[in-house]
């Protein structure tokens, strides 16, 4: 490949409204939701029957039968059945990684148009049989004689029949994500008031965005829901302040993380349409923005060296340095609000001379972030966080925001389980 990469344009997006788990979408599968989100995107851009280069997607909570989830959603959608698709996974960064993958293929000229997507249902969660029962069933399958079958069954104990539920606990620590973050929050001394204020701003900004029709061409209703159901336009600092702590109650520090400043379990799906400039022009579509670059990072949270959700703090400086940028060059910061305190610890880390020197090896801190530039249309605390769908929500929204405001550059950051983080630059 001798040609320089061509720009990957973000043309738009579509998602279904996000809904609190076990409510309106309780009976919808990941495939149902992703298919609907794709169909809304296809309709918005008049792509029915078109063969696209590729569709990338994934889900964090995934049934074993969904090995080809994205391809199955494409087959159920209005797209040409000749559109290939692939699944990938990077925990909560899945949707962004899918979008970045499509962007990179466009940049390399492998495809001229594609869709990055993601979906998650915390309601329709996969429930598995216990490891013991699974062993017996596999043994039964292999058995050839009656005696072998009886022998296999005889190993079964009543307790083996208990189902295995998915957990949000980290595989290597057993701690939930909230408990991990509570440790980080306490270590950085992030106040309850700051967290509640961030949550409040998220709700207020997203409510305002809905009110002014910002989401009219980013969201398509689904199952009778036409707005994000976790959004609380009437939230106040007082109502948030009245909530009891949900995480960190076992720590010595005063617990500060509540249901109000942590994202609720949510169901939803999102999609982003990307293409080359030529494809966009051929289809009479004006790009919203461009996905320029991305950087992933991971931290050693297992030994306790770093907090579980701190990886973006490492990815961002590397991404900016590679592109010759500083915070001063960024107009919009889209930092996924897994918890209000996640955003606040990242920001505290970037302001900390010690952290930036010791951990990032920088001569000077990255500096503070102007709150007015942070999540201008709200983020996951207001919209909810259907894990793999968050990346698509953010990319489509921030691209539209750049177009609407005439601003130049956005930095996107998403933390993920397993001590990972994925960040990206979006430019007008």
């Amino acid at each position, binding site marked *: 490949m001798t040609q320089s990469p061509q720009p990957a344009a973000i043309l738009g997006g579509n998602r279904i409204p996000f809904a609190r788990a076990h409510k309106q979408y309780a009976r919808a599968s990941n495939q149902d939701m992703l298919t609907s989100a794709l*169909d809304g995107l296809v309709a918005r851009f008049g792509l029915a029957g078109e063969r696209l280069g590729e569709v990338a997607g994934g889900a964090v909570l995934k049934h074993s039968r969904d090995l080809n989830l994205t391809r199955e959603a494409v087959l159920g959608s209005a797209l040409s059945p000749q559109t290939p698709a692939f699944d990938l996974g990077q925990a909560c960064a899945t949707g962004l990684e899918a979008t970045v993958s499509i962007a990179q293929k466009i940049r390399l000229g492998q495809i001229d148009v594609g869709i990055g997507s993601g979906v998650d249902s915390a309601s329709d969660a996969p429930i598995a049989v216990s490891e013991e029962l699974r062993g017996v069933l596999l043994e039964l399958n292999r058995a050839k004689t009656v005696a072998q079958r009886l022998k296999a069954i005889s190993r079964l104990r009543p307790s083996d029949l208990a189902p295995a539920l998915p957990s949000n606990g980290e595989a290597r620590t057993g701690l939930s994500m909230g408990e991990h973050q509570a440790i980080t929050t306490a270590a950085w001394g992030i106040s309850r008031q700051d967290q509640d204020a961030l949550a409040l701003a998220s709700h207020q900004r997203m409510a305002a965005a809905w009110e002014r029709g910002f989401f009219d061409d980013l969201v398509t209703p689904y199952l009778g829901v036409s707005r994000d159901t976790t959004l609380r336009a009437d939230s106040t600092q007082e109502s948030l302040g009245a909530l009891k702590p949900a995480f960190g109650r076992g720590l010595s520090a005063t617990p500060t993380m509540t249901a109000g400043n942590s994202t609720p379990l949510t169901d939803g799906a999102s999609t982003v349409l990307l293409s080359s400039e030529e494809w966009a022009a051929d289809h009479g579509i004006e790009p919203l923005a461009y996905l320029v670059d991305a950087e992933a990072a991971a931290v050693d949270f297992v030994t306790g060296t770093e907090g579980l959700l701190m990886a973006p703090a490492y990815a961002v400086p590397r991404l900016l340095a590679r592109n010759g940028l500083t915070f001063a060059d960024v107009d919009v910061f889209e930092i996924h609000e897994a918890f209000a305190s996640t955003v606040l610890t990242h920001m505290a880390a970037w302001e900390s001379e010690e952290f930036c020197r010791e951990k990032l090896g920088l001569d000077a801190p990255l500096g503070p972030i102007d709150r007015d530039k942070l999540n201008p249309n709200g983020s996951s605390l207001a919209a909810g966080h259907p894990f793999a769908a968050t990346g698509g929500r953010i990319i489509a929204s921030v691209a539209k925001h750049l177009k609407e405001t005439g601003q130049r550059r956005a930095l996107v950051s998403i933390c993920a389980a397993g001590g990972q983080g994925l960040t990206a630059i979006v430019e007008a």
Partner: protein
Amino acid sequence: MTDRYTRLANGPLKALVKTLGLPSPVPLRRYRDGAYLSEPVLVLGAGAAADAYAQILLDNGFEVRRKPTSEKLSAVLAFFDEAQTPTDLSETALEIGGALRGLVRCSRVVVFSRDAHIAPERPADVDPALNAARSGTLGLMRSLAHEMRGGSTANGIVVSDGVPMDAPSVQGALWFLLSSKSAYVSGQPLHVTTADGEATTAEALAGTHLDGRVAVVTGAARGIGAAIAATLARDGASVVGVDVPQAGDALARTMNEVGGTALQLDITAEDAGRVIAQRVGAPIDIFVHNAGITRDRMLANMESSRWDSVIAVNIDAQLRINAQLTEAGAWGSSPRVVSLASTSGIAGNRGQTNYSASKAGVIGMAAAAADSFAAQGGTINAVAPGFIETEMTATMPTLTREVARRIASLQQGGLPDDVAEAIAFLAAGSSGGISGTTLRVCGQNMVGA
């Protein structure tokens, strides 16, 4: 598609229906059954136009008879355009009568005449006998429509003085009326007021005659709007469907089915026209103002919210969008605007003062805006549906619904497709000579007659 009574009356209960003299609707022939019938067309009248149309029909592949015949006929064309006094109507009228028994099911009678002046403000120099003859032709046509049986219809084409009888829009109107696309249009005069419009053929108008046109349809998610989108797309147009964000999922489904583009937008928004112009991003050739709501209440009990929302959606938004599209220079070179009126806007309907005001308003808007659209080489018309089988009418009380169906000459409700076909016809390139009019698609319902 046909209602239960129609199915029974054409099936197990056929004999009973006949014995008791009950309404006997027949399933109407529609476009999917083929555009035109194959039996000969009888052309009546001695004038030049009758001769010209005999030739035009032959050129378009129809079999033509110029004298009454015992053969089965698919249509009768009767020319009264040269009638000078009411007594001139006699010969051709009686010849039509003689031909009626020879008509096959779902056949057509099309009556041609010149425009009569019946509005009081018209000039007084019109010859009363001439005007009586012209006006009388329409009376004949309307009553004949009531007498038609077996799904057949009678309609008129009324051509203004000075417009050649073979003008593009007259021919286009004929192909529409002869075709199955006009299945639910009966007892209606189609007024051709100018010689504008592209020349067309019977075959062209039955094909993808809207190829390359960009069409915007409001209220496109469901019902009649979805049918309009599908029909315009079938005829070749690129369709942009507009509906409120809350109907976005249904809109997406419809647009994906017809290969269109979905635009989630509240048309009552102050800048809706500008947003449409910007999002469509191409000259708009066809705009169908279909979005409409009902908020029925007796006027004595009417809240301002009910009144105001109906006016806002059904007529005010249309006026504003038209103005903004004109201001933005968003129209194509010969735009076609079609607005949904209603027979309620013509006859009025108990409990629908707000709705009738808005729909009568649409009729007034189309009449008044014709000149400004003519200045842009375009047309604006209204289509007034009667009782159409939709999700909305399916929820009417059974008896009311049955009455509404049977009091039409065609003794049944229409389908959303019937409304859509009339709109596609008015949107056709050949319809440039038809503007400012309201075409009823009502099966000649007594309501609003």
